[in-house]
């Protein structure tokens, strides 16, 4: 990694600016003129014409409650089982002093094809009045349809799908009504008993009723959003799925028994991944300015859930310099194609993003060597997702940026609140180059980016994206890889597991064309405040020869599928 005199500072509360600048002039100087959206480019903006009229609202009115600044979740799920991905947008709630004409509520949009969506929130009952950060979309009851678990500031909500696309609130009976400030939740079969258990990532202990404003005491002309150091961490929760026999959804809090009660972080993202290749899913938890967790899953098959925190031991608790980072969106991928999963987080400005390369269960911070350091130093990342954007078989990377201090430019002219998203192309062997300018007009725009979800929204075989914007509508980005000339140079996998884990979360798939091998996992949760397409897409451009898939199902059984046709999705049911 870089030299010793780097990355120690992050933006705190606004200190009196030794350097101030005429902000308006600076912003004018650094912003180009408005341009009409161009049709060309890797990603085409579809939001404006999609029918998605949702506007993310943080619910505040100037008090700058800490809850406001990290809101913005988006999820992709096929709620109606018609084969395409629908869109769920998480919404804030009116905070003290805010008067609204109608309650703020989440929104569910049905995908009607052709990049048109219809608001079906009411009809589907897919919302609550909580202050929602993200929605996880697992099949919690194993009945084959996707349910909604809403992570809220305050009581979380579980909405169970009746199979007809209508949701019912079963939170109280489910045991999932945790009242901490939850930002993310992973649903994985930790004990490998066939159903999905739950890990809820909670952030900090913050009470809007009693919290004091931040910044003013430091001499700033106005108060500002608080730094997380001001608050105690809220404990995460581990919940075992004990439902199923009588059709009821029932989770039991096993945090203490699982060994997770003493490790308290400030969770903003979770990535389930089998980092040690032992056949079960482990959990990487990205924490905000305190050490990250890597929970090694030591649960015996069908036995009690046992998690052991090894983040510090294996090198992902901090960056390569030993600094706690403000980790937000996170993801895992085999970026160097060496057969194991590497980890990535996006962080605050004045910290680089971090790529930990897996070296046999130990991780090395290779951010700079990968080309992901310098390019991220001035940015505040939230959404972060690996994808093979150009279908060339190498992992690419999409990042949504946006600062957490709306006045940041007033005391640091080098930074801005609204920021551009970034697109990186994987060059192979774990190296990346930023190609935002080839990504389309969207990457020239500035937004306060938050959640980012990926999935093949138009079913054409390349992976599209949705990015939540703070106080704006989300953007829908159509990947033009297929449109721009890629033929059937891909293969899609849509797995169906046995038992209650119907979407085979935790399955690991190796796609081989000759000696060229790609690796991926079914996760759902990942990035920031997002649920992603659980189908996997492997790019095959320039890779001749037959395609062979090696699937390791969540229960450990391994299956080989050869001779699969390119250019289509394959629904594969576990035998």
């Amino acid at each position, binding site marked *: 990694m870089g030299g010793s005199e780097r990355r120690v500072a992050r933006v*705190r509360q606004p200190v009196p600016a030794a350097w101030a600048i005429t902000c308006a002039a600076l912003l004018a100087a*650094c912003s180009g003129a408005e341009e009409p959206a161009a049709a060309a480019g890797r990603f085409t903006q579809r939001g404006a014409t999609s029918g998605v009229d949702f506007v993310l609202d943080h619910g505040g009115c100037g008090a700058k409650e800490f809850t406001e600044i990290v809101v913005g979740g988006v999820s992709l799920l096929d709620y109606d089982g018609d084969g395409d991905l629908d869109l769920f947008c998480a919404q804030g709630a009116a905070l003290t002093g805010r008067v609204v004409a109608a309650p703020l509520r989440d929104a569910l949009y049905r995908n009607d094809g052709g990049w048109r969506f219809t608001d079906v929130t009411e009809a589907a009952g897919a919302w609550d009045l909580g202050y929602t950060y993200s929605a996880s979309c697992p099949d919690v009851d194993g009945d084959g349809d996707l349910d909604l678990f809403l992570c809220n500031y305050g009581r979380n909500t579980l909405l169970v799908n009746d199979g007809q696309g209508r949701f019912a609130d079963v939170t109280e009976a489910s045991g999932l009504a945790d009242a901490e400030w939850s930002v993310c939740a992973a649903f994985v079969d930790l004990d490998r008993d066939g159903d999905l258990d739950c890990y809820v990532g909670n952030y900090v202990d913050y009470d809007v009723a009693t919290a004091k404003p931040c910044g003013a005491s430091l001499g700033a002309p*106005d108060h500002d959003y608080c730094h997380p150091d001001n608050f105690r961490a809220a404990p995460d929760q581990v919940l075992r799925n004990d439902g199923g026999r009588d059709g009821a959804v029932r989770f039991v809090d096993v945090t203490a028994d699982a060994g997770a009660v003493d490790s308290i972080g400030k969770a903003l993202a979770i990535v389930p991944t089998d980092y040690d290749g032992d056949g079960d899913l482990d959990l990487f938890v990205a924490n905000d300015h305190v050490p990250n967790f890597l929970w090694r899953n030591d649960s015996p098959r069908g036995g009690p859930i046992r998690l052991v925190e090894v983040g510090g031991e294996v090198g992902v608790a901090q960056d390569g310099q*030993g600094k706690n980072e403000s980790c937000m969106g996170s993801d895992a991928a085999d970026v160097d194609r060496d057969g194991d999963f590497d980890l990535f987080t996006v962080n605050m400005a004045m910290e680089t993003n971090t790529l930990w390369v897996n070296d046999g269960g130990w991780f090395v911070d290779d951010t700079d060597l990968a080309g992901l350091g*310098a390019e991220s130093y001035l940015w505040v990342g939230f959404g972060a997702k690996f994808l093979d954007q150009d279908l060339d078989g190498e992992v690419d990377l999409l990042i949504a940026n946006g600062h957490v201090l*709306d006045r940041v430019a007033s005391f640091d002219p080098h930074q801005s609140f609204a920021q551009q998203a970034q697109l990186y192309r994987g060059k192979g062997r774990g190296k990346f180059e930023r190609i935002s300018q080839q990504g389309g007009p969207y990457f020239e725009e500035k937004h306060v980016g938050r959640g980012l979800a990926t999935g093949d929204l138009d079913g054409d075989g390349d992976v599209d994206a949705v990015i939540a914007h703070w106080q704006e509508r989300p953007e829908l980005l159509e990947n033009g890889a297929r449109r721009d000339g890629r033929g059937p140079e891909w293969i899609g996998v849509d797995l169906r597991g046995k038992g209650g884990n119907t979407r085979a979360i935790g399955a690991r798939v190796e796609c081989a064309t000759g000696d060229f091998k790609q690796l991926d996992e079914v996760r759902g949760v990942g990035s920031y405040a997002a649920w992603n397409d659980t189908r996997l897409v492997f790019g095959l451009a320039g890779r001749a020869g037959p395609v062979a898939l090696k699937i390791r199902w969540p229960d450990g059984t391994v299956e080989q599928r050869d001779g699969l046709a390119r250019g289509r999705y394959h629904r594969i049911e576990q035998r």
Partner: protein
Amino acid sequence: MRRVRVAWLLPLALAASRCGPDGATGPAGTGTGAAKRADERPLRDFPLETPVAGDAAAAAKHVAAARQAVGLGHPDVAKQSLQAALAADPANLEALLLRGTIGLQKSFAWEPMQALTAFRLARLVDPASLPARIGEANARVALEDDAGAAALLQELADDEAAGRTKPTEEQRGLVQRGLGQVALRGGRFEEALRHADAALAIRPTDRASLTLRAEVLERLGKLPEAVASLDVALRQRQDDSTLHFAMARLQRKLGATGEAERHAKAYQSLLPFEEDGSTSFRTDWPRRIGLRRDLVAACPEFKRGRHLLVRELLGGKEFAAARAECDALLAADAADSEAWFLQAKALAGLGDYAGARRAADEMAKTGKVAPPVHEELLREIEKTANGGK
């Protein structure tokens, strides 16, 4: 593109409430569904105007005050003095260089962005200024602007080789170290090692160069050599958590579990002091003292850890315990100026003002501290003796 003039003292106030028609707070810089388009070019290179000369005499007084504050370890005072100096004379080269220099000091006033701007302004004032050029290059290294840094550093190295400039040893070392850091981040490990060795040939005890060398050697798989290099750095700066972190990792790789644990413990005991900016931690004396005791237990051979423990004992008003620690330190090394300094404070806290003055004088006799430090310590003792007046 318009050029932007830096205003040094521009209070920016926001409206007290930004609630919209229904009370909503709008985003800054964007409108609903309508985004500004802009370059992705980093803002670190925003245009600057050449500063205009002002009252040099007035600025000189503030610069002197800033230098004194630096000597006394008061970063905020130093920054305020430099701000005043630059308000009086925006083209004051000395003030700009000092502002840049302290902004690159990790344990003092780490603000690499501000450092870069200061050095850029200094170069506008005097394009040939060697400290400004080297400062800008190293600020760019710190900000991971490797392309910008590499170009500047190579230019500096070429100028020196051609005899166009005559840098000091320190400046030559900085250039080599910067080139090494850029090469390391670019994955050119052998080249990075050559630069690290060149930097150390000029300044054998430069901590940052030792750390760089250790990092490169680790990448090259030369772990014992990396440990040796890091060990020298660690002996110079025993309270740098990153050094302990790196040492723990190296020792773990070498299978030296006990050593790894020891350094990991030291790292964990140091980290909160570097990273936890909360009010609760600043005043949580039992925890702070406990962490310092952990450090001393992990690295009993490091005197610095015991100094830090005494500082926390003083903060927690445990003056007797602080005095006892100082006695032990001074029994081991009667020329330990830091221990005398802390002893004076402990004695003042216990009400032994005569003893405190004697300790302050003993500190001065070691010859290791600047006279202003002695004077300020005596003033502080008097103030304590007078009930804080």
